[in-house]
């Protein structure tokens, strides 16, 4: 009997913990959104973060998209070959990249690069009392530290996804023309035919949502870090894992909402 009670108590604590955590995150998000919308604004800080998130993510995003687009073309060529449908390569590369792979891969790559960096930087600032120092110097940490990161995340992810989509489609084209024997002009004409406005808008919308979660979770876990270097390490891990989960979950929800 006691064992069952203890198990139930443990389960109850875990459930309450999940809801309390979700509540804390929602309150944190509301505070950040408020700070982002109301003055004072720190445009210098925003530009700095836009460069860090957008510009410096370009190499990793570009390479990921290029390799994935090429691999996708190869797989579709082999898979399509079973049904004599090799000609679907350009169309499926376009669909695959724009609708799913572009946003999700960019989201995951940027989460790995940026959410971890944000959590580590803010976590270090927290444990070395720099965040307390900000408050005593009358700068709101939400306005000075977090809002610029959130706004930069929401603005830069769509741009990165646009670049990734273009490079991914180019990767598919390069492989198809050079290895699979496609005619370059015909491939590009088919590609253009299958690029749809609605798909493109959905990809950008997904990217903005992913950018929001990457910055929010990176900052949230860093801001709440405690316990020295080990605490910062744990916060960084939590930031990356939780942003991966939120990217994949929100991707599914948006996909189902649009195509379901």
């Amino acid at each position, binding site marked *: 009997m006691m064992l069952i009670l203890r198990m139930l108590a443990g389960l109850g604590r875990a459930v309450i913990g999940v809801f309390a955590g979700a509540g804390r995150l929602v309150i944190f998000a509301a505070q950040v959104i408020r700070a982002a919308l109301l003055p004072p604004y720190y445009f210098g800080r925003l530009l700095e973060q836009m460069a860090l998130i957008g510009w410096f993510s370009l190499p990793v995003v570009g390479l990921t998209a290029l390799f994935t687009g090429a691999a996708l073309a190869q797989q579709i060529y082999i898979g399509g070959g079973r049904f004599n449908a090799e000609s679907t390569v350009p169309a499926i590369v376009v669909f695959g990249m724009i609708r799913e792979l572009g946003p999700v891969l960019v989201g995951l790559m940027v989460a790995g690069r940026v959410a971890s960096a944000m959590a580590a930087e803010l976590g270090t600032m927290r444990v070395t009392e*720099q965040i*307390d*120092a900000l*408050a005593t110097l009358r700068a709101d940490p939400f306005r000075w530290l977090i809002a610029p990161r959130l706004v930069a995340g929401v603005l830069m992810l769509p741009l990165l996804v646009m670049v990734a989509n273009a490079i991914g489609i180019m990767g598919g084209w390069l492989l198809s023309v050079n290895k699979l024997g496609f005619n370059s002009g015909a491939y590009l004409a088919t590609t253009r035919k299958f690029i749809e406005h609605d798909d493109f808008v959905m990809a950008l919308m997904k990217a903005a949502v992913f950018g929001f979660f990457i910055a929010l979770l990176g900052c949230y876990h860093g801001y709440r870090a405690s316990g020295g270097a080990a605490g910062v390490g744990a916060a960084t891990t939590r930031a990356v894992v939780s942003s991966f989960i939120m990217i994949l979950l929100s991707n599914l929800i948006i996909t189902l909402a649009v195509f379901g």
Partner: protein
Amino acid sequence: MSEIEDKMPETGEAVPMIELIDVRKSFGAKKVLDGVNLRVTKGESLAVMGGSGTGKSVMLKCILGLMKPDSGSILIAGEPMTGATSRDQQRLRAHFGMLFQGGALFDSLPIWRNVTFALTNGRGGHRKEMRDRAAMLLERVGLGSEVLDLRPSSLSGGMQKRAALARAIAHEPDILFFDEPTTGLDPVLAGRINRLIVQLVKEMGATAVTITHDLHSARTIADRVAMLHQGKVIWDGPASSLDNSGNEIVDDFVKGLE
């Protein structure tokens, strides 16, 4: 003149610059502050002493408005810090200058922007003017202008502390807080920082609160010492009376006994 200076109630007694009334704070079942009462008058230099984990830092964070007490009130020049809106807390913080234990300089900014942070509200404008101001402030704490463009990580521990001190006094605050100002410094450097603090507090005519467990530091910096033990102020008297306080716990602390 500062808006919180020279407030006199009708009784003629000066309003204390800092007043803590029955302040309590617990973390779970652990009572960290268990009814702290403390008054610091204008121009006074108080050292709050106590062993590790006696609630000194929590008390300081409550005064600064970084932590909310469970009950009790904290008044800054008669105005409540506890329960104040964040706007009012920010206004009250204009009177604070705080030296954090590790300096807490912003790693991402060069020294000159760190030092002038309170003047620029964290913005990068007025570069020439602010660099000149930073150079003047650094000179006051014994640092040369060669450190202006360096990042905090390029400075030694003592230099970081000095730069942090320059940042704390940049906006000419009325109340200065020092959290363990000599921790991690060698005795010579600690002596220099102590003397620098005394000099700055005197020059500025500021009220000072120093959190420390360093007896020598407390004797050098403070006029008055409050001893915190198990979340309560158990002794409060002139720094010169530390050796004959008549309090067993203070005696043990002074003699370094368990």
